Each structure stands twice: as C-alpha cells, then as structure tokens.
C-alpha cells in the first residue's frame, strides 16, 4: 500500500487563500480523516489530491512520486462523492466498470473487477439496476464500489455519509471500517462530523482557516489538544471554557481565580503562562464536571437532554458562565452518566476539579492538561 504525502500545499483563489501551506503524511494503509468547520479548506485539499483543483504551490506525493500536476485519472486515486455522482444512464455494473472501460481494459477483466467489488459491498443483486432504482445507502455503496474496481493507490471520500439518515450513517460507518480493514488501503476521508472522525480515523487532521491545527490519533486529539480550537471542536457537547485570572505563580504551579468561585484552582503548567495578573482560559469537558472531587458550585438546571442511560444537563450557575459557545448561552454543560429527571429550575451543582481541567494561554495554545492525561 502506498503512502500519501502533502507537502506545503497552498491554494489561493483571486483574493482568498483557501490553503495556507498544509503538510501531512498518510502512512500506507492509514485511514486519515480531515475535519474542520465549513470553509476550512478540507474539501479543497481533498479535491486538490484528486486533481479536480490545481494547487498554487507545494507537492502531493503518492509513494514519493509528485502527482500534483498529473491528470486526475493518472494519479491512482479514486473518489467517493457526497451526492454519489453515479451516472444515471448506466446500470450499476456499467457505473462501476466505467473507469476500466475508459482505460481500455478487456471486458473479462472489467466484469471480474465489478463482481469482486460487488461481493465485498454485497450489492451483487443490484448490478443490472439503474441508480434511480436504488436507495440512498445502496447508491453510496455503488459509489464506493466504483472506487474499489479501480484498485486505486489512495481512496478519497468527500463527506460520503452526509446525505444518509442517522441510522444508516452509523451502519455505514461500521461498514467503512470493515472495508478499510479488508482492503488495507490508504484512505483520506473528509467530514465535518466529529463522530465520524472519532470513530473511523486511524489519524485525524484538524483543519481551520486553511491551516492544520493538529494531527494525531482520535484519543490524542481528544485528550491533549494543542489549542483551544481543537479542544472545542472535538467532543459533544463542547468543552466548557471559563475566563479566569492568574493570581499566584510559583515556577510551573499557578493559582487561578474564576468569577463566582470562592477558592483558587491550582494547576501545573506545561507551557508558558501569562504571568501573575494575566488572563487565562480554563477548559472543562462536560464529563469532568460530574464527580466527587474538587470545589462544588451550586446552580439551577436550565436544560436537560436525557439520552437514556446518560444525560446532558445545562447548569445556570449565575456568576460562572462559559463563553465561546453560542449554543449554550453561557450555561455550563455537564455530562451525568445516569438518568436525570428533567426539571427546569431545580437545584443542582457542578464540581470543578483542578486536576481535570485544561488551561489555555492568551494565544489559545494549551498550557495545562488534566493530571491523568
């Protein structure tokens, strides 16, 4: 299996720089997921790898060979599109075999490749149907099958599951995972859905405003985000951010004061802090606020989202409000690993445990992590 290397790729449209020098490497057989908010450049990067966009500078290498200026069909990549992009006038089998037919391969070889891909995807009984006779999930399978028949060096997926309903999406996630294990192919997958990223990726690339914020395994990114953007982007509900002030510093040990919290929180810095009197942002994952340790902060229940065996409770604590999260209106999100009787205005509390908090410097870089991580 070949590797894919993106080397300082830049892409600009008239006045807009979509990619500002992106570099990463997908190792052979790796499942790399590129995530980021809309307009972050992830689709542009994927389309550049496919050859549907020309890059302004940089190199794209497959197994060391720069393909950045090759014709799309000569790059050894196959792409699965968001809207399937199946040819409506061809049968499923013709759709899947079209690339091989264009390459002038003998009919027997095409038929064999189509049969093999159809078996892997369990769509053999649909081969003679036209795409319009298929359901959304079946169409997406055919689109994946079309990629498989080409036996490409690198598979590219452009938000392939976003047109499917929730149940089908989780089923296809499992199926894609199985497919990756079976084909052992190098795959690059673009999505804005962090669940897809967390569940399927061997490595995640987080993009923001045309730049890579961080790359790493899903858990690396979740546990040790390099900055506030990554910390906030991965995890639902988002990490709670609180604005505080450093009141004491002794080497790497600092004390932070948060509004509405009587006691100071003691943290150990791993990076450069803002100094005494400086502003600092503390971050707490919703699951870190439901526990036994730390300081208790009383509040009232604003919203309860019961998910069955667990619940998300949004707590109004009065003085201590989160920021950087429009959807939460300043309420603190807490994850309770048990059912909660939904009652608006009921008394409840959160627990702030300094050993489970993140801290971010004024420039947004992570400077402290929970002690266990």
């Amino acid at each position, binding site marked *: 299996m070949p590797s894919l290397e993106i080397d300082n790729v830049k892409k600009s449209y008239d006045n807009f720089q979509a990619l500002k020098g992106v570099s990463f490497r997908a190792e052979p057989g790796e499942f790399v997921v590129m995530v980021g908010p809309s307009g972050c450049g992830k689709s542009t990067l994927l389309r550049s790898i496919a050859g549907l966009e020309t890059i302004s500078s940089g190199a794209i290498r497959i197994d060391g060979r720069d393909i950045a200026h090759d014709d799309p069909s000569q790059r050894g990549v196959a*792409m699965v599109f968001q809207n399937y992009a199946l040819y409506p006038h061809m049968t499923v089998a013709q759709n899947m075999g079209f690339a091989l037919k264009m390459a002038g391969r003998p009919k027997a070889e095409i038929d064999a490749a189509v049969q093999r891909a159809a078996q892997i995807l369990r769509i053999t009984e649909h081969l003679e149907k036209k795409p319009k006779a298929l359901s959304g999930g079946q169409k997406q399978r055919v689109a994946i099958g079309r990629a498989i028949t080409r036996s490409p060096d690198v598979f590219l997926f452009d938000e392939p599951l976003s047109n499917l309903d929730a149940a089908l999406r989780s089923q296809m996630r499992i199926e894609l995972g199985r497919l990756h294990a079976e084909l052992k192919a190098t795959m690059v997958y673009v999505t804005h859905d962090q669940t897809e990223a967390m569940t399927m990726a061997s490595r995640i690339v987080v993009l923001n405003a045309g730049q890579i914020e961080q790359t790493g395994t899903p858990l690396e990114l979740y546990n040790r985000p390099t900055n506030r953007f990554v910390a906030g982007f991965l995890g639902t509900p988002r990490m709670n951010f609180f604005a505080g002030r450093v009141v004491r510093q002794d080497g790497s040990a600092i004390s932070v004061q948060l509004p509405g919290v009587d006691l100071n929180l003691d943290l150990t810095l791993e990076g450069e802090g803002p100094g005494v009197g400086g502003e600092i942002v503390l971050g707490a994952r919703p699951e870190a606020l439901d526990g036994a340790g730390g300081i208790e902060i009383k509040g009232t229940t604003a919203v309860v989202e019961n998910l069955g065996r667990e619940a998300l409770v949004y707590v109004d604590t009065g003085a201590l409000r989160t920021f950087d999260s429009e959807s939460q209106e300043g309420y603190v999100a807490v994850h309770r690993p048990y059912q909660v009787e939904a009652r608006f205005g009921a008394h409840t509390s959160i627990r702030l445990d300094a050993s489970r908090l993140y801290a971010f410097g004024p420039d947004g870089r992570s400077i402290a992590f929970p002690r266990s991580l």
Partner: protein
Amino acid sequence: MNGRTRLVAIGMHLILTVWTIFVLAPIGLMLISAFKSQAEIFTKPLSLPGSLNLSAFQRAWNIGIGSFMLNSLLVTVLSVAVIITTSGLAAYVLARSEAKVMKWLYILIIASFAIPVQSVLVPLYQMVSGGHMLNSQLGIVLPYAAFGIPFTTVLFYAFFLEFPRELEEAARLDGCSRLQIFFRIVVPLSGPVVASAAIFQAVFNWNEFLLALMMLTEKSVRTLPVGIYGLTTQYSSDWPAIMAALTIATLPLLILFILAQRHFVRSLAGLGK
C-alpha cells in the same frame, strides 16, 4: 378545496378554454375546409362539409406536395441537426469556461436575438447568391441554422449550468477527456433539452416562408410553405386544395410534438432559472 380556490380554479379553466378555442379554431377551419368544395367554402364557411370530399387532397398531391414535403423534411432535419450540434458544443463551452471573454460572447449571442430576419434579407441573399447556393438545400439550411443557433445555445446554456458538476468530475477521475465527458456523460443525459430544442427549431424551419421564398425559386427544391403558396394565383385560388395541402403539411409536426411533448414541457419548465 374551499370556495375561494374553487372559484379561482373555475376562472382559470374558463380562460384556458377560451384560449384553446382561439388557438384551435383556425386549425379546425382548415380541416373542415379541406373537405369542402370551393363553392361551399364561400357560401357556408363555418358549417361542416356536406360530404366527405377527398378530391382537394388529390389535387394538392398532384401539384407535388409529396416532393415539397421531402424537401421540407431534408431542410428541417439538416438544419436542426446543425443547430443542435453547434449549439450544444458552444453552450457547453460557454457554461463551463471561466474566461471573461466567454461571458461577453454569451451576451453577444443573446444580443443577436434582436436582429430581425427582414433587416438582413438583402445581404443574406447576396451572400447565398455569391456562394452559388441559390436553389440548393444548403442555401437555406445555413441561414436557418444561423438564426436557430442563438436561441438554442441559450436554451442549452441554462440546462448545462444546472447539470451536476459532480458527474463530470467523476468522469474526469474515471479517465474521460473533456470531449468524452461531453459525449459520454452530458449528451446522454440531455434528452429533454435536445427534444425541446429540436421541436422548437423543427416547427420554425418547417413553417419558414420568407427566406425559402427568396432562396428557393425552382419548383424542384421548394419547401412546403413556398410550394403551397404556388397554389394561389392572381385571379383565383383553389382554397380546398390549399387547405388540404396545409393539413398534410401540419401532420408531421403534430406527430413529432405528440411524441416528444413530455420532454418539451419538462425542459421549458426549467428555463429561466
């Protein structure tokens, strides 16, 4: 359905009924007149024919409607083929090109709508004559194509703008060249717009009179409208025969329209997006 929408629906149907009668009346008149005698047409113009008299059709056929029809068929098929091929390729390039000059070219094509045939009759005649194409099918096919291409290009342009780009991108990844994308992916999926363009142009060129009258003076190359016109003379006209000839001339288009009507309506519904 409440009273108000019911009232609106009745009103709409009323208007459509009147309009339909208005459109169909001349055709009906043509049809019944074709079966009448010359005297009947003038004494009882609106009544049904006294007997089913087919002699008018016979007289019409005898003056060479058959060969006129063959000429019309040849001219129409050729000109429509040229129009569709040229406009299709041109519109695809215009719809896909990012170049500014193409936008200007497109505006120029739209502007060319504004040129009436009558204003260029003389230079057009001189050009066709200078090219030694008077009294030849080519001499009429080329002007027809020239006047048909702008509208058809605009029609195709609107369709291609809406054509899903992902299909073309998938085809690029599958190894198609630009031309292959056009002929293997875009054309097979352009049935509705091709059908409506073909009907439009076929109707127009089939019925075209002025240019044909000018360019085709010899009887052997005349198209239907000019040929039928030959049935009128300065002092007397064989009206039943003229009506019979017109009825024969209308039939092929009617059949074409019935066959392709579904596509026609669908593609017009998408126009103006």
